[in-house]
């Protein structure tokens, strides 16, 4: 069917659209209420006039009989009001016929099926689809969700026949189908000028389409969905009572999350169906949901509850999902015997009830809690786990699974494991689209579509060591709460960016003028601390700009470099400068001395040991910092296994700790420093060779020596060779170091004057290139600082004094 035919077909909806434009739904509702009240009033007066003397109740209103001479008029009015009420009722039904049309897809897919939203766009402006869209309820709502007014959109005319309208998978042309067709037209340029991307427009339109459909379905009480949801009166007679269970449990509907969790849909279909399939088995119908903390394990159980409630689960029809409050249960039990007796009674109740799916929300804690009381839960519930009368769901975090469940043969074998992973970007967006409506109603705020995509993106990218699913929910809640307190009605993308910045310290969103200036002059800023090393400074600056602009690969660390060079040339100082410049004063510099990881237990020290149940240094440090710079000093000294660990980290941006939990390092700049190949760097330098040009030779030498594998070096964004410091560079380094000392003395009220005598002395001391800046540092400490300290102790220097060392002082 082409566009013209769709437009022709939409004309069938025109009477309803005409009615709506003439008198809107809300006005019609008011009229119906007024007519109803009027009818009741007139009918009441009429009843008093004709039957007042016969009924005790109506006798109270006998004063109305003074109007008996108007009884004919009253009867006439009654008939007219009655007729109008009937007509308005019929007209409303007429509108509703079109309003609900094609909400549920028809079996006849051959015929074109339009919803009223699509018809409104196609026909309202006689074929000008752009105008039709922008003037339709659907279009206005989509544009509002995108944070723009329809008035701001420039209309560019185009030939309607050029576009193709594609019905959805059910053969229905909805408002969303028209929106998708519109992106093929010059309308997309108008959107671009409003900084709206094609993806955002299509996403917002699909969301609004779903909101509209759900809204219509909720009013269609006779529809399949509503009928399926009706609770049967006779249902309770067929199943047993669970009085004791009720004391320690809540049903899915009673949980606070039930109505905020997205209902059973295409994005979460697979795990819910798998869970349903496990629970539908005739024996050992026990499922164990295993996944990272906050990944949405409970939500899957709640979605199954929705599926059963909506009558979509034929296999588990009439079942109810009940969460056993294990903490309360263990606390109430207090003693081993009480706990065991109560648990057995509950399980017997569940078995005889015949319609309960029992959920142990935190199975591992329950087992451990009971263990502390001396009770072996696994042994106790084993007969029930194999029983055909019970269906049990256990929920457990991955690390607890490894610790508690995996080590217990009964629990491991009786439960069928169902791995729960993050639903990914699309799944999370679908979830947030669902839950946000509840928060909007609660806090009286409005989320734009871009704010939702930013929340999902932010949760996965910047809160990467927490489960994104839970983070998303918390972000929505906190943003809505914050907005209400600050009297902000619309939550846009920038509000989410500010929220992320405040929470993580990572700068996201638009670059401000001050920051822009800082980023442009990065090289200059870094040079204030680093002498020479142009290649390193340039590489670092470029990496920072890439990260800030958000164009770097989000699935790898922000940047990664290997700094090669002899000691004392500024490798570590460069990393410190980078941390300070990029992350500010609260620099998140994590420094690991890799020489500590050269023994056999290096991996255990870094990622933790399952056997001794000790967490790893790297795992703990990364968990404690959401972002920063990870400095791996003297990387060549670490074991081959550690190098292999970093192969994965550099490639994929994460590693797994001792329990198998993923630790994300994607918000870190990883820099490994190494003295490997220093001798060769020296030789080349002494020969006057340009080191950057000989980088390949140096790398080949290092690989040839077996210090690093070639694939490891290739994983770094860059291998940077640091030059040895000579001549003027040494003086500059000395100057920088003395300035630091000068600053420290200033804090004590002593003015230290940096003169040529000191500088020449330090330059001479630092002229041994083998030790680089370290010899200058040593000379400052051993000579300059020592002399000043002597003078302070001798009382020659006090607060407010000035000191300039002479050649006699430093001889």
């Amino acid at each position, binding site marked *: 069917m082409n566009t013209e035919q769709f437009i022709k077909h939409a004309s069938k909806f*025109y*009477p309803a659209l005409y*009615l709506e434009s003439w008198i809107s739904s809300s006005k019609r509702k008011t009229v119906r209420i007024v007519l109803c009240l009027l009818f009741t009033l007139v009918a009441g007066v009429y009843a008093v006039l004709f039957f007042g003397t016969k009924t005790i109740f109506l006798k109270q209103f006998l004063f109305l009989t003074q109007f008996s001479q108007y009884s004919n008029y009253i009867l006439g009015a009654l008939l007219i009001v009655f007729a109008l009420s009937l007509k308005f009722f019929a007209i409303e*039904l*007429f509108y509703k*016929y079109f309003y609900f049309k094609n909400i549920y897809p028809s079996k006849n897919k051959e015929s074109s099926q339009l919803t009223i939203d699509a018809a409104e766009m196609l026909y309202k402006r006689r074929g000008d689809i752009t105008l039709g869209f922008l003037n339709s309820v659907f279009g206005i709502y989509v544009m509002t969700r995108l944070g723009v007014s329809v008035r701001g959109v420039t209309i560019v005319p185009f030939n309607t026949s050029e576009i193709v309208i594609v019905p959805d998978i059910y053969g229905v042309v909805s408002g969303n189908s028209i929106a998708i067709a519109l992106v093929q037209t010059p309308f997309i340029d108008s959107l671009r000028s409003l900084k709206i991307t094609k993806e955002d427009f299509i996403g917002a339109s699909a969301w609004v389409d779903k909101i509209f459909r759900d809204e219509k379905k909720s009013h269609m009480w006779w529809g399949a969905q509503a009928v399926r949801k009706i609770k*049967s*009166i006779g*249902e309770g007679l067929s199943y047993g009572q669970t009085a004791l269970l009720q004391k320690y449990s809540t049903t899915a509907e009673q949980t606070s999350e039930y109505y905020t969790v997205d209902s059973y849909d295409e994005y979460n279909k697979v795990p819910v169906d798998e869970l349903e399939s496990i629970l539908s088995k005739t024996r050992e119908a026990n499922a164990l949901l295993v996944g990272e903390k906050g990944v949405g394990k409970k939500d899957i159980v709640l979605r199954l509850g929705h599926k059963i409630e909506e009558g979509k689960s034929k296999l588990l029809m009439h079942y109810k999902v009940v969460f056993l409050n294990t903490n309360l249960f263990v606390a109430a039990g207090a003693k081993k015997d009480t706990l065991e007796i109560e648990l057995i009674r509950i399980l017997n109740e569940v078995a005889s009830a*015949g319609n309960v799916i029992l959920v142990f929300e935190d199975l591992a804690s329950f087992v451990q809690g009971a263990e502390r009381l001396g009770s072996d839960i696994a042994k106790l519930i084993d007969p029930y786990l194999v029983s055909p009368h019970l269906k049990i769901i256990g929920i457990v975090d991955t690390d607890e699974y490894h610790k508690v469940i995996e080590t217990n043969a009964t629990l491991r074998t009786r439960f069928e494991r169902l791995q729960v992973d993050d639903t990914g970007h699309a799944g999370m967006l679908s979830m947030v689209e669902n839950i946000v409506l509840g928060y909007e109603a609660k806090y009286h705020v409005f989320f734009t579509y871009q704010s939702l995509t930013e929340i999902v993106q932010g949760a996965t990218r910047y809160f990467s060591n927490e489960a994104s699913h839970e983070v998303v929910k918390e972000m929505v809640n906190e943003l809505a709460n914050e907005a209400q307190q600050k009297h902000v009605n619309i939550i846009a993308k920038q509000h989410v960016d500010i929220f992320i910045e405040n929470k993580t310290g990572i700068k996201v969103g638009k670059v401000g003028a001050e920051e822009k200036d800082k980023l442009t002059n990065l090289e200059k800023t870094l040079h204030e601390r680093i002498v020479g090393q142009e290649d390193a400074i340039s590489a670092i600056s470029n990496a920072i700009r890439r990260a800030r602009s958000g164009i770097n690969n989000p699935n790898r660390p922000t940047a990664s470099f290997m700094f090669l060079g002899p000691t004392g040339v500024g490798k570590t100082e460069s990393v410190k400068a980078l941390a300070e410049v990029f992350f500010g004063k609260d620099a998140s510099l994590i420094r690991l001395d890799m020489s500590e990881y050269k023994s056999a237990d290096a991996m255990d020290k870094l990622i933790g040991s399952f056997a001794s149940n000790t967490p790893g240094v790297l795992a703990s440090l990364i968990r404690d910092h959401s972002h920063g710079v990870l400095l791996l000093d003297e990387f060549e000294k670490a074991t081959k296994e550690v190098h292999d660990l970093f192969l994965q980290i550099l490639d994929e941006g994460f590693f797994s700790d001792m329990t198998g939990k993923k630790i994300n390092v994607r918000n870190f700049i990883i820099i490994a420093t190494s003295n490997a190949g220093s001798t060769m760097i020296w030789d080349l330098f002494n020969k006057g060779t340009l080191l950057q040009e000989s980088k390949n030779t140096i790398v080949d030498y290092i690989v040839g020596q077996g210090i690093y594998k070639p694939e490891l070096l290739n994983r770094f964004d860059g291998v940077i060779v640091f030059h040895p410091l000579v001549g003027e560079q040494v003086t500059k380094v000395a100057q920088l170091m003395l300035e630091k000392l000068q600053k420290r003395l200033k804090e004590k009220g002593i003015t230290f004057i940096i003169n040529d005598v000191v500088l020449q002395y330090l330059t001479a001391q630092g002229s041994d290139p083998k030790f680089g800046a370290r010899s200058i540092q040593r000379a400052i400490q051993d000579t300059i600082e020592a002399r000043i300290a002597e003078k302070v102790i001798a009382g020659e220097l006090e607060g407010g004094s000035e000191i300039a060392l002479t050649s006699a002082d430093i001889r």
Partner: protein
Amino acid sequence: MNPLSFAIAYVHWHYCNAFIFILEIWSGAQKATLKLFSFNDLVRSLFSPLMRIQEQHEGKFDMEEYAEIAASNIIMRLVGACIRLILLLVGFVAWVVVFVTGIIFYAIWITLPLIAVGSIIYGVMYFI
């Protein structure tokens, strides 16, 4: 579109599509009634013990105890059947009400334009 074409479209709908629409609502209402009283389940479990309350024989075989338990279980099944039958009856009455209401509604619907127009004309006549 002018009011006249709207009126024509409405009348056309009133005597064509509206019948299908009302049928949809009517059948939905009937399904809702049947679901509310869960006819299928009540019939299927007609003689099941009420709320699964059942006694079970434990220990050695004792004729007297066995007979007591059997009698008690039969009573629970009979009580269950009685309550279910009452519910089935109430449900059936509710369904009949919905069904008859539908027929009456159809009858009113066919004559609705006439009733409305007639009432207005008759009402206006009282004013004259």
